[in-house]
C-alpha cells in the first residue's frame, strides 16, 4: 500500500442519504488517504446522529464546478421565465401529490 503522508491526504466531498430522503445530499468534506478511508471517516464524522443510511465519497478534484464569475450569464437568464414553473395549471385532485 502506498499511503500518502498526512499532509498530502487529498480532499473528499461527502454525500449522505437520510432515512427519509431518496437522494444523497452534500454534507461536507474531509481529508483521507484513499476511498475506503474516506468512507470510514465520513461514517464517524457525518453519521453520528443517525443522519444517514448510505454514504458517497467523491474526490473533490473530480468535481467540475461552475465559475462564480459566470453566475450572471449562467443563471440570471432564468430569472424572468416564470412560465417554466408549472404553476399556471390546475392539477386534478386525483393526481395527488406531485
Amino acid at each position, binding site marked *: *500500500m502506498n*499511503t500518502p*503522508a*498526512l499532509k498530502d491526504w487529498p480532499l473528499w466531498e461527502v454525500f449522505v442519504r437520510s432515512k427519509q430522503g431518496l437522494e444523497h445530499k452534500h454534507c461536507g468534506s*474531509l*481529508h*483521507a*488517504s484513499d476511498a*475506503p*478511508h474516506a468512507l*470510514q*471517516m465520513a*461514517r*464517524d*464524522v457525518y453519521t*453520528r446522529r443517525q443522519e444517514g443510511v448510505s454514504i458517497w465519497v467523491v474526490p473533490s478534484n473530480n468535481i467540475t464546478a461552475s465559475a462564480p464569475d459566470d453566475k450572471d450569464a449562467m443563471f440570471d437568464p432564468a430569472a424572468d421565465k416564470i412560465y417554466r414553473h408549472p404553476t399556471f395549471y390546475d392539477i386534478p385532485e386525483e393526481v395527488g401529490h406531485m
Partner: protein
Amino acid sequence: MNHHATPVATYQDYLLHLADNAVILGQRNAEWCGHGPVLEEDLALANNSLDLIGQARLLYQHVASVRKDGRSSEDQLAYFRDVPDFKNYTLLELPHSTALAPTSSGDRDYAVTIARNFLYSALMVLVWDTLKASSDAQLAAIAAKSLKETQYHLRHARDWMVRLGDGTDVSHAKMQAALDHLMPYTQEFWASSAMETAAVKTGMGADTQQLQATWNAMVDDAVTAATLKRPSSAGFVSTGKLGVHSEHLGFVLAEMQSLARAHPEAVW
C-alpha cells in the same frame, strides 16, 4: 462482597467482568478526546468510547436489577467500587504507551491504542456473537446490540493496523512495538477463572477457549496484511479479571470516579 464462589456471586461477577472491560477501555479511549491525531480519528475514538460506555451501562443496570438490594445502581457499580473489585482484563487498563511508566500525556502512542482495540474487538466480536444465545435473555439482548458496535470497532482498528503496519518505516516500527508490548496480555483472554467456568456451565457465559482458534486466525490474517510479525505471547499471565491489577488501574479510576465521589448522588 462475598469472596466464596457461590453461584449468585459468580453470575454477577461474570456480568461485572464484561461491564468493567467496557467501561475501562471506554475511559482509556476517551483520553484521546480533543487530542486525536486528526479530527476524524478524534471523533472515531470518542464514538468508540461512547459505544463501550453504553455497553457498560446496560450491563451494570442488569447487575443492579439482579441484585435487587436497593443499594446497587449503575453509578454505584462504576464509581464507588475500588481497584480489587474491578474485573477487567489488565490489557484494557494500560496507558496508551509502550513504555511501562509514561511521564506525560504526550507519550500517548496511537499504535498502542489501535493494537489494543484490535486485539480486544477481535475477541469481543466472537464473545458477543456467542452471547446472543445466552441463557440470560437480558444478556443476549445486550450482546446483539453490542455485536454491531464491536464489528465496527474491529473494522476501524484492523484498518488502521494494516495502514500503519504497511505504511512508512516509522509507522511500521511503532505498530510492531505496540503489538510486541500488548500481545502477552492476551493470554488472560484464555486463562480459566471460576466465574467464567460457572457462567459457561449454566449456558449464560461464553467459553473463550472455544473461540481461541478463530481469534488466532483473525490476528494472523491482520498481522500478515499489515506486513507485521506476530510476536510471542509468552510470559507473565496478567490477572485483572480476578481483581489483581497493574498499578495503572488506580490512576484510571481516580480520574473516572473523582467527579461522582466529589458530588455523590448528583444528577444532571
